[in-house]
């Protein structure tokens, strides 16, 4: 499935802010990104698929929007 990935916070120092990638699920997406950017392996990440936070692996539908987010630091 082709999905759109959006990155936030410190992840934008490592990855582009927006890009398209092909992956079947969140696990495969993270494995691909970590393979290309080893520094991601130590990161604590929150994932949202179509604006819903997901805690377990989620299978993608075509054109899903996946947000990769480091711990929040507002205020």
């Amino acid at each position, binding site marked *: 499935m082709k999905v759109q990935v959006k990155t936030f916070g410190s992840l*934008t*120092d490592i990855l582009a802010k927006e890009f398209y990638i092909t992956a079947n699920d969140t696990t495969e997406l993270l494995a691909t990104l970590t393979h290309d950017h080893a520094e991601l392996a130590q990161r604590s990440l929150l994932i949202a698929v179509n604006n819903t936070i997901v805690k377990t692996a989620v299978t993608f539908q075509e054109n899903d929007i996946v947000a990769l987010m480091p711990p929040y630091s507002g205020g």
Partner: protein
Amino acid sequence: MTKQKNDIFFQGPIPATLVAEAISQHHNKPKIGAHSIFLGQIRADQIDGKAVKSIDYTTNRELALLKMAEIREAVFDKYPLACMHVYHSEGEVRVGEICFFVFTSSAHRRAAMDACDELVERIKKEMPIWGKELFEDDTHQWKINK
């Protein structure tokens, strides 16, 4: 009961005049007996001998506004509030400027104070907002909430 429905994000620092206007807009609400206000200000933290000069805030805006709606509903359900207003900066805010404004109003002080406190804590913990601390020498580090 008035609820601020619009976007909570304010481009750049939150001006003191916005706080004053928020207070004056409640003069015609005679059932209100207490307001509680929290203001977050950018602090000149010293990190490895370098001083923070500003924080550049970015957000996952869509998700943040969904989350804010959820927090707002939960806090209105929990406390007998008359009003609630929340503003958070997006973009660069310099040391000494205001980046976060929470304003709650109720008939008696306890509800306004407790709701304000809970809103501040929940927003800092649950809202997809990130602060990039910019130093005088143009380097940066990403803020970590304690």
